[in-house]
């Protein structure tokens, strides 16, 4: 029976034949192996069946991709619209509906922006001046991290912590016209938290710091110049995220020096803020085609024609990840402080709920 069918289908030819054959095969297989490989007790047999299944899946997947490509190609040849690209369903794009997401037509949002604590810096009335200090104990990676932070943030000054209370330091910094304080907290010789205090009257953000990679540990890293960096803030969508974003923005001077070609990125993804620091360069390079052609017909088209601009990126480090733990109203005050936002365990009831 089966053989006859096959012969019949052979006559059709083309792709369909193959697919029908495999379909028949897989159907047959299914009939045979309703049993899952995990139900087979003999290990040799189990692994064999499993490998077979896996191979089959792989083939199917490849064929699907091939068909998709072919369809796209055909559409291109016929001059039609290519079939819509499929968008994978990720946790971010299926995030829970959140009414706090900022809308560009929100009048109150802009009024609030004008009134908030960062507006004087962001309107370029004041240039930011940052005080960086540490926790009481600080060693090994802490100082190294701070020295790198000093190269990242212009107009940042490191002060030894000594035995001063943080509230005293806040007072001192207020007197000296600092606009923010960054405290690098170190635990077991590893920086593990970052407290950013905006002066003179808050807010205070407390971040968890993880995955710190220092410059010297980054392969083929670059050494940054002292130009004012450009700043990229990605995905700070909600009101809270907006506020945190503005807070981070207020650490940097608002006039980037584009000659320096230095970029600092804060990328928010699923409430984790990824920090990266890069240098870029534009290289105008003759493409390979132009090279091969130029050998033959040198002056036919001239040098103007085939110049392609390529951007090169080089990471300067450090590299780290921040996660917001709390945002406090006012300056640092753990005992009597009011919180604008604290992370509470009862909020973690869904993987698809994000706050930034």
């Amino acid at each position, binding site marked *: 029976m089966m053989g006859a069918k096959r012969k019949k289908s052979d006559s059709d030819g083309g792709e369909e034949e193959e697919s029908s054959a495999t379909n028949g095969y897989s159907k047959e297989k299914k009939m045979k192996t309703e049993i899952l490989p995990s139900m087979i007790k003999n290990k040799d047999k189990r692994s064999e069946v499993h490998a077979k299944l896996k191979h089959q899946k792989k083939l199917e997947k490849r064929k699907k991709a091939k068909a998709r490509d072919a369809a796209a190609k055909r559409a291109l040849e016929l001059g039609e619209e290519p079939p819509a690209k499929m968008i994978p369903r990720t946790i971010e794009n299926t995030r829970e509906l959140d009414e*706090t997401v900022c809308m560009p037509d929100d009048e109150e949002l802009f009024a609030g922006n004008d009134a908030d604590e960062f507006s004087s810096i962001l309107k370029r009335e004041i240039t930011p001046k940052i005080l960086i200090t540490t926790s009481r104990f600080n060693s090994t990676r802490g100082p190294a991290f701070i020295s790198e932070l000093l190269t990242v943030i212009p107009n940042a000054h490191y002060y030894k912590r000594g035995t001063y209370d943080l509230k005293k330091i806040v007072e001192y910094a207020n007197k000296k016209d600092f606009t923010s304080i960054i405290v690098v907290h170190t635990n077991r010789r590893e920086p593990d938290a970052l407290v950013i205090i905006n002066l003179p009257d808050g807010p205070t953000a407390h971040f968890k710091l993880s995955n710190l990679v220092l410059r010297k540990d980054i392969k083929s890293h670059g050494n940054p110049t002292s130009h004012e960096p450009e700043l990229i803030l990605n995905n700070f969508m909600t009101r809270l995220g907006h506020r945190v974003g503005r807070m981070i923005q207020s650490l940097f001077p608002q006039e980037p020096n584009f000659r320096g070609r230095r970029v600092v990125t804060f990328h928010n993804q699923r409430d984790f803020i990824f920090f990266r620091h890069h240098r870029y360069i534009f290289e105008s390079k003759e493409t390979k085609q132009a090279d091969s052609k130029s050998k033959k017909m040198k002056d036919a088209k001239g040098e103007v024609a085939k110049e392609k601009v390529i951007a090169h990126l080089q990471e300067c480090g450090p590299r780290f990840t921040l996660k917001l733990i709390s945002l406090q109203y006012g300056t640092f005050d753990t005992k009597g*402080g009011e919180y604008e936002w604290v992370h509470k365990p009862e909020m973690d009831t869904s993987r698809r709920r994000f706050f930034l």
Partner: protein
Amino acid sequence: MPRTSALECPGCPPLRALTFDVLGLVKVIEGRGKQGGVPKVVDRWGEPDSSKCVLAASMVHAKYDPLLAVARKNGTIEVLNPLNGDVRLSISNVDDTGNRPENDAIAGLHLFARNKVDSGSRSCTLLTCTTNGKATLRAFEDIFSADSASVGSSRTWNVCSSGNILCSKVDGSENYALFGGKGVEVNVWDLNERTKIWTAKSPPKNSLGIFTPTWFTSATFLSKDDHRKFVAGTNSHEVRLYDISAQRRPVISFDFKETPIRAVAEDLDGHTIYVGNGSGDLASFDMRTGKLLGSFLGKCSGSIRSIARHPELPVVASCGLDSYLRLWDVKTRQLLSAIFLKQHLVNVIIDSNFTSEEVANSTRDPSVEAAQTANENEDGDDQHLQPVKRKKSLKEKKVNKKGRKEKNRSNEISAEDCGSKKLKSKKRVKCEVLDDSP
């Protein structure tokens, strides 16, 4: 498929709430319809301006011509009509001595209801208190005349010599007021004589000999008709019950969580209070025993600045720095609904006249009126059954349905009787039956 867990908010009974935020906006939130209505922002008064940030608000819940007083950061006090937001009166609290409003902000504001009842609706009396302890009692004869020069009388006195006043409250009879703050022990004043009648005494040092500095952040009287008992919340996360007639030290004192108490509100029953703190925890306590009745859980993440109890329905409203107005069921402690209002909120007031007002202009919407009167009736009938109200209404529906069914059945029976009597006109009877069936 993406699994999303939407917040299940059962919705709340019809009510009207006013919220005040840091941009000086007043937003009106109304929940309409029966149980399950989602409240919405129906109105917004004022333009966003950070210098007009609201510091305190007070309202007279009169049936006719209610008034709302709002104290702003730039030192002005506005008297509004809480129905449409028209400014009736605007006065400046800045005096000639050159005190700038930033240095001496208003900490407490109370609008008296008593005078209105006595001498017509044209006058109003205001009690304001600044952070430096300057209390002022102002009376206005005629708030409807356009000029604000019609100040009847204004009396000022100092309630504290040092420290900052952070909370003030006037009791139900409006004869006594209490003040407290940072470095100021709670003190009670007789407003008629303007004399201090009582001052609290700070609690003794603890077993380690450590003295916690005085810092009251919120206070409220325990019941409307008793000025002797009041509850105060401190910055060192302590809730204290004071009894003037008993002693100068707190009668009951207990800790609540680990951040400062920011808001305290009393219930109608005279012994329950609601406490909100700096990290967004809200709980109710029984002040007879000092025991925790339960916490209100609902993903509230920002400091609670204000709590308001609905005067009739079992609903509590809370708002604060997370810019949500949250409505809770008192009995089940469930979140009824949360409304995002975009700014840090400072204060919330529930307008108690909302339902009656609905009835008044019910000519256009009789169904709503019917629902509301039904609700009110229920309230009157069985206050002990309030938490199961929804179930009850369901039951009622069922009963109704049953009733209808029975009716139908009786109709059928009668029809059948008819049929047996008049066999000839069977067809017609059938038609009748069909007609009867809904």
